[in-house]
């Protein structure tokens, strides 16, 4: 156990050490959080209102435990998704495993140590979703102190089950995906299939929700105390026991549930350790490396191609993104994830015929404003631009000693991010043309606007990365992990254009889709101009040499 502790400490230190972090980064983070404060207020008051309303309906029926049940279930589902992603990167994508394998350590010690990072992440996520609701529920139901104590205990247990489920599943998959015998390829396969799994799960749940049947079932269960709870958590004991603990903590039932909960979690941990001991190292080791090839003069002649510098540079960028598993998942796959998810859900809803409400909103001036802000949000979350310089890592100095104009380097990098955004925009086109069936005028106005917004967003991301890139990484993960830059980029974009959209929305002088479009075009072009001149200014200050 002692060794495991030491391992945990080393691994966390490597991930969260403040070496190379500047105070200005902390300052940016504080500003970003200040921006988020109003959103937190909105979030809490919305939750509070909804919860009070639910409670007042359910309490007379003796069904208020349903609220806690749903809370625990959704928390577990969210944590399960987060677990998949964090475990995959911590257990398999991080390069540091290779350096730990030669040490005389048991596999279970390695996976326990590796779990620390994701666990911190999960507790953060749980705190965000679970704690506010817990306290509001406690307030609304005027609960005793015991409720809060039990609530905190459940909080401590909360991430364990989702984490162990995801962990065991992934270790099992990785053990056998590795037949591919190619480290990079199996990383990509595993990354994409876990996204696919999430989407499939969603489709599956949606296919199985038949509203009529649900209403009948609900009608039966509502007649008994806590019946609804038992009904929705029947297939998932952790949520059931958790809820019973919370809602009946003052009686024996609750205390028994609490012990059942503890036993369940302990069991899960043991199972996880056992699976890790059995599967983990073999899964990692299975990832072999490249093969040897032979080369011929004919091949040399065929592969030697002359291209203009900008094209050659963009090709180099795209090659590196598509060949590096971490970059591929972060820059390409995860930015496609949201739109694909949306398309599938909307497609299924449209086939069941209740998409009408969505269509109505998307017309005229207001429709354009919504589409504009939505596009900005989707292209803004792409990590390609904000990692543009950081991705180079220790190769960055090659951009300096090679005869490359720094401006050209940055423009090529912005273009790369813009090209990757094209995938997302293409998905949006599919969505608008085939599923939502947007009006043609609106569509034709939106498309160039989205392409311009994508350039603006890429330029902004690149500028932010230029200010404070992370070049000193040993593992590609560090380019994305514990950096606030992505969040800051989105907040700036949505802050500026959110206010503008709000103004346009409410200003009655501006009416009609063409006038709104003209204003948006002018503004986004000004935005692009501003970003380019800021970048020009930074290059004059030799920022590219100072980083």
């Amino acid at each position, binding site marked *: 156990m002692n060794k495991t502790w030491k391992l945990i400490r080393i691994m966390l230190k490597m991930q969260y050490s403040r070496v190379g972090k500047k105070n200005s980064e902390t300052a940016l983070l504080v500003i970003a959080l200040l921006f988020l404060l109003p959103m937190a207020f909105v979030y809490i008051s919305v939750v509070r209102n909804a919860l009070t309303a639910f409670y007042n309906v359910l309490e007379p029926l003796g069904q208020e435990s349903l609220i806690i049940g749903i809370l625990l279930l959704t928390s577990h589902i969210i944590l399960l998704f987060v677990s998949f992603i964090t475990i995959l990167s911590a257990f398999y994508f991080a390069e540091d495993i290779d350096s730990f394998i030669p040490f005389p350590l048991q596999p279970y010690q390695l996976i326990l140590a590796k779990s620390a990072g994701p666990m911190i992440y999960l507790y953060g996520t749980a705190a965000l979703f679970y704690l506010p609701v817990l306290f509001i529920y406690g307030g609304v139901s005027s609960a005793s102190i015991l409720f809060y104590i039990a609530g905190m205990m459940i909080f401590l247990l909360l991430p364990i089950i989702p984490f162990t489920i995801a962990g065991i599943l992934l270790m099992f998959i990785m053990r056998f995906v590795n037949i591919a015998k190619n480290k990079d390829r199996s990383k990509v396969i595993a990354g994409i299939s876990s996204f696919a799994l999430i989407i499939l799960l969603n489709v599956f749940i949606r296919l199985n929700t038949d509203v009529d049947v649900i209403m009948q079932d609900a009608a039966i269960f509502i007649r008994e105390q806590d019946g609804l709870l038992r009904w929705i958590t029947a297939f998932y004991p952790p949520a059931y026991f958790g809820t019973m603990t919370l809602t009946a903590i003052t009686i024996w039932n609750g205390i028994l549930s609490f012990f059942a909960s503890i036993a369940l979690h302990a069991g899960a941990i043991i199972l996880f350790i056992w699976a890790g001991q059995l599967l983990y190292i073999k899964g990692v080791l299975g990832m072999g490396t490249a093969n040897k090839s032979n080369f011929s003069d004919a091949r040399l002649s065929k592969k030697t191609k002359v291209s203009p510098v900008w094209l050659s540079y963009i090709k180099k960028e795209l090659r590196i993104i598509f060949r590096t598993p971490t970059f591929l998942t972060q820059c390409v796959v995860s930015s496609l994830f949201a739109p694909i998810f949306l398309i599938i859900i909307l497609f299924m809803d449209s086939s069941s015929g209740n998409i009408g409400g969505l269509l109505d909103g998307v017309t005229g001036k207001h429709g354009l404003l919504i589409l504009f802000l939505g596009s900005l949000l989707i292209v803004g979350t792409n990590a390609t631009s904000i990692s543009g310089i950081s991705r180079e890592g220790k*190769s960055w100095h090659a951009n300096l000693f090679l005869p490359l104009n720094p401006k050209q380097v940055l423009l090529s990098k912005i273009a790369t991010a813009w090209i990757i955004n094209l995938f997302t925009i293409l998905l949006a086109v599919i969505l608008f043309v085939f599923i939502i069936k947007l009006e043609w005028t609106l569509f034709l106005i939106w498309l160039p606007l989205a392409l311009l917004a994508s350039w603006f967003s890429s330029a902004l991301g690149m500028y932010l990365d230029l200010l404070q890139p992370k070049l000193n990484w040993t593992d590609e993960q560090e380019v994305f992990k514990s950096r606030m830059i992505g969040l800051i980029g989105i907040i700036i974009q949505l802050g500026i254009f959110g206010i503008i959209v709000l103004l346009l929305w409410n200003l009655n002088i501006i009416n009609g889709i063409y006038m709104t479009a003209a204003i948006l075009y002018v503004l986004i072009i000004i935005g692009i101009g501003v970003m380019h001149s800021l970048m020009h200014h930074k290059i004059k200050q030799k920022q590219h040499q100072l980083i």
Partner: protein
Amino acid sequence: MIEIKEVSKHYSGQRKVINRLNLTIPDGKIVGFLGPNGAGKSTTIKMMTGVLPIDEGVITLDGNDIEKKPLEAKRIIGYVPDRPDLFLRLKGLEYLNFIADIYDVPKEVRQERIERITKQFSIYNSLDDYIQSYSHGMRQKIIVTGVLLHDPSIWILDEPLTGLDPKSAYILKEMMREHANKGKTVFFSSHGLEVVEQLCDEVAIINNGELLFYGTLEDMKETYKSDQSLEQVFLELTSNE
């Protein structure tokens, strides 16, 4: 020709690591830049190649100021950095094509040079592999190949012989000699002395950011007691404080 005039440099919040350095490297010579670890060799070279900004002073390469005309200056030089880990996710040939595109090397020329140099270095068969799968020495060789594609008039190498096997080291030394014989400048740093006697026409010795000596080996032996070995002179020069 490289001219370094009154150049100083400090890293953020530290003492000067280069202090008013003056050095002129002529054409057609191989000049060794010697000094113990941490003497300031890499820092000087990074300023010469435009990687680091210069605090004070001027560096010109064939008359082009690296700060005022960076693109012109960089087109003239070929630089082999001390750590050869560049663009590991590219294949060898992709890397060479990328470099050749940047320096505008025509197709026939690059094809001929890639073939000749990589065959000399015995990395020809690895051209289709990712640089990531190369050993340290192979990575160094692919970078040297890239540098020679545009036949630079000034060739700068930072600790080039560390990590090369004897045969590759020999080939590299031959290439440096050939380059200098064409009337071009070859400037390389080294913390060891082994190569000096067999390779250098002139040496510059630096310690704690200050130039201690510049001249031919004979000059050095004349200046210091001629009965001492090179090693003793070097140790004596760099052991002050």
